[in-house]
């Protein structure tokens, strides 16, 4: 019997193998038939038994193609115009070539299986040579069926494959389409290119099976939402969750399609103030890396010592101290030292106790930078975005030096199906040159669906910060605006998201570098500051952040289970 791959866990298990061989995060999805890839996803057809060795070999072969750079768009374009059979011959030659090149990291069984074919056709030296031979007139043996397929057209239609970014007109269409009723996706790989790009969350029957599977087994590959203690709540419920707390949690980390690209992310409801109800599964937030730029200059990481000093007093918790003059327990080492001192004739102060003092910092902070188009405006010769970026940089640097858990993301949105979280630094990464370069490569673009961005920030803090005190710092001009997201509706949703954060014990503050009319509607006076520089922020960072933590702490159970980290 052939198992349906969507219901077979062994397909999911192969994802790690495929990612290891491809050298980057690769997803496996059930397809209609055959095994093929679009550069980011490997589709395994329903006619392939997921557990079988041939299936594993086929997945490895496709991952090898991704690793070897065989799938670039110019060659795919050429193959799509060539006579039938060229693509499979190219596939065979490239697998054989890559197999030789990557010898050290491929399973021996796979190599042994490829070897007879490679020996018969001869190994090429480059993708171009493979292409020439594949489209040439000289007869050439096609690879065995288990190599899987190569579908140049599917490759070209996949927006994620070659790092292509969709054009503005495509985006406009996608935004419009995102608000229309969902289409049923019949074929995962070969839908028309536009449908691919506009689809918001996966809604096909196969997709939802897959998504439940992904959700239920927590995250794997790509941007990490691992370590999540969030219970998986049925996503397809039509009712709005009853409480804000529930809302913030009803989000299994999963694979989502944001703006047509598969990535890690989550789907969030949105608050509709008009009907006083949540719109379930409304916004898709996906993780992306900022576009790499040639040489974004990273300024020297000078830090404001005053800011560090102020921040060091935020989010403190109790820690045992040795050699204290007062305390509940004896410090034996100190006691022996004291006895020695007495015996030696010099009696000092008997600091012989252990006591808890509030000195240890237990702080996790997510700095969320507004990288939306509105911040690109110039103000007295300075782009607001650059001021905000420098402020976010200063805060991250200070927190990193303090040893706090800190993550930094930027965000923008293009409609509810495409809210983008751009990674600068995750909680686990070091605030090194690579991470800082990502921050400085950011260019403002798109719109501001602030509510979804805050909900996702809360979620990341909840699942990844692993600290007792959690803080979300939004650096931006504070004007929410997106397609179908403006005015009262947007303000109310954003305020709701902030309330949800607080009820999840995540403190939430907003920082702007310029006074803008909209921000006071969203942030109350206690939780918002206009600070052009880190020096200005240092002046009352302790009050601002301390108050935010205090407000978040209220109404939360005292007992806090520290998540693994």
């Amino acid at each position, binding site marked *: 019997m052939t198992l349906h791959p969507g219901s077979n866990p062994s397909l999911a298990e*192969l994802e790690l193998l495929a990612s290891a061989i491809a050298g980057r995060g690769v997803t496996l999805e059930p397809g209609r038939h055959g095994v093929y890839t679009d550069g980011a996803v490997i589709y395994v057809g329903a006619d392939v038994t997921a557990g079988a060795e041939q299936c594993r070999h086929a997945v490895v072969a496709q991952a090898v193609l991704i690793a070897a750079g065989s799938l670039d768009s110019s060659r795919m374009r050429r193959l799509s115009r060539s006579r039938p059979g060229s693509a499979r011959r190219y596939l065979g030659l490239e697998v054989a070539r890559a197999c030789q090149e990557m010898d*050290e990291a491929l399973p021996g069984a796979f190599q042994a299986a490829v070897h007879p074919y490679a020996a018969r056709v001869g190994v090429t030296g480059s993708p171009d040579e493979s292409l020439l031979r594949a489209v040439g007139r000289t007869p050439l043996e096609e690879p065995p069926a288990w190599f899987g397929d190569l579908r140049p057209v599917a490759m070209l239609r996949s927006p994620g494959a070659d790092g292509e970014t969709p054009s503005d007109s495509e985006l406009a269409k996608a935004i419009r389409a995102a608000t229309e009723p969902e289409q049923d996706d019949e074929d995962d790989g070969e839908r028309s290119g536009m449908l691919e790009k506009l689809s918001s969350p996966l809604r096909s029957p196969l997709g939802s099976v897959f998504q439940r599977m992904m959700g239920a087994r927590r995250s794997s590959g790509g941007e990490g939402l691992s370590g999540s203690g969030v219970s998986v709540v049925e996503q397809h419920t039509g009712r709005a969750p009853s409480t804000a707390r529930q809302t913030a949690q009803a989000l299994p980390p999963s694979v989502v399609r944001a703006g047509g690209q598969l990535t890690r992310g989550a789907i969030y409801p949105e608050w509709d103030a008009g009907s006083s109800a949540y719109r379930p599964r409304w916004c898709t937030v996906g993780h992306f890396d900022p576009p790499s730029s040639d040489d974004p200059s990273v300024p020297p990481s000078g830090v404001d010592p005053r800011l560090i000093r102020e921040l060091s007093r935020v989010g403190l918790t109790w820690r045992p101290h040795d050699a204290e003059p007062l305390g509940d327990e004896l410090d034996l080492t100190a006691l022996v030292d004291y006895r020695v001192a007495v015996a030696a004739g010099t009696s000092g102060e008997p600091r012989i106790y252990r006591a808890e003092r509030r000195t240890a910092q237990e702080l996790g902070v997510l700095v969320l930078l507004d990288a939306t188009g509105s911040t690109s405006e110039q103000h007295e010769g300075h782009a607001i975005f650059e001021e905000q970026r420098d402020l976010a940089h200063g805060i991250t640097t200070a927190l990193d030096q303090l040893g706090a858990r800190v993550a930094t993301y930027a965000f923008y949105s293009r409609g509810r199906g495409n809210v983008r979280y751009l990674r600068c630094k995750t909680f686990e990464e070091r605030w090194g040159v690579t991470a800082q370069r990502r921050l400085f490569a950011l260019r403002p673009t798109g719109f501001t669906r602030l509510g979804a961005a805050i909900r996702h920030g809360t979620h990341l803090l909840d699942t990844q910060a692993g600290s007792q005190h959690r803080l979300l710092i939004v650096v931006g001009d504070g004007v929410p605006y997106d397609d179908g997201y403006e005015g009262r509706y947007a303000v109310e949703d954003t305020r709701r998201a902030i309330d949800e954060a607080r009820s999840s014990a995540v403190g939430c503050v907003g920082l702007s570098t310029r006074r803008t009319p909209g921000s006071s509607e969203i942030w109350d006076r206690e939780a918002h500051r206009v600070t052009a520089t880190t020096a200005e922020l240092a002046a009352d960072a302790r009050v601002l952040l301390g108050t935010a933590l205090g407000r978040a702490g209220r109404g939360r159970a005292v007992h806090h289970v520290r998540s693994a980290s």
Partner: protein
Amino acid sequence: MITQSTAREPVPLEADGPPFYLPVGNEVEVFEAAWRRGLPLMLKGPTGCGKTRLVEHMASRLGRPLFTVSCHEDMTASDLLGRFLLSGGDTTWVDGPLTQAARVGGICYLDEVVEARPDAVVAIHSLADHRRELNLERLGGTTIQAAPGFQLVVSYNPGYQSVLKDMKPSTRQRMVAVELGFPTADREREILERETDLRGRPADELIRLGQAVRRLDHPGLREVASTRTLVAAALLVTEGLSFTDAATAAVAGPLSDDPELRNGLIAMIRAFDPGNDPAAEGTSGHAGHQAAQKTTRTTNWIQERA
């Protein structure tokens, strides 16, 4: 009365040559040059890449006693320098490992030095610069000049995010740094053979598995399959375990507790298991053949548990 004594004997020198160490780069030359010139050394590298083995090898090769300290966050300067103990009505001074090494001209190795609190690490400053001396304030301000042959070696893993994360710049710049990585596939293969006597297909596939796992960029994986874990897996194979069982126990288990990630790793291991490859039996050596037979007999306990 105050007496001085040495609490611990230094590590005895190996009778039959230095412990095996296969260099991945010029680390042996740098180590030796630094030792000759009395420069402190900082070894950076991922867990299980051979930092400790390198130090043991060099200590033996240079004929110096080795004093190893595994640093932890409760370690104080006294743990390094020494302290008074009460014995009967008297107090006795006991040298710490750093003081002992300085007295006898040994190599003092502070393993995972970033785990120690900064105030404890500051104790090494005066030894680590041109002064090469140790001030024992508690011992009436005694100053010990480091004996010839003394060297300070610290190691840490730059990948870890500890709260302290980093050594103070003032400590770092007193050191000469050597960066270690995992060996290339060929060298790792040689290490595996020397350490475990495992040869043939299973050894090849273990090396390949290691290379493949190191290509993963997965947030749930805090470490990758190190040379040490591969050696452990190879040892289990030589004890008669099947390839999959051995690699699951030695590689997949230690890497992650996440059940999903574990299953992914186990699926990877199966892909590399030479016993799963009946076609290759003819071409492989006897070891591969044996493993193939064993795998068919062994039921997979991981699967049963899941």
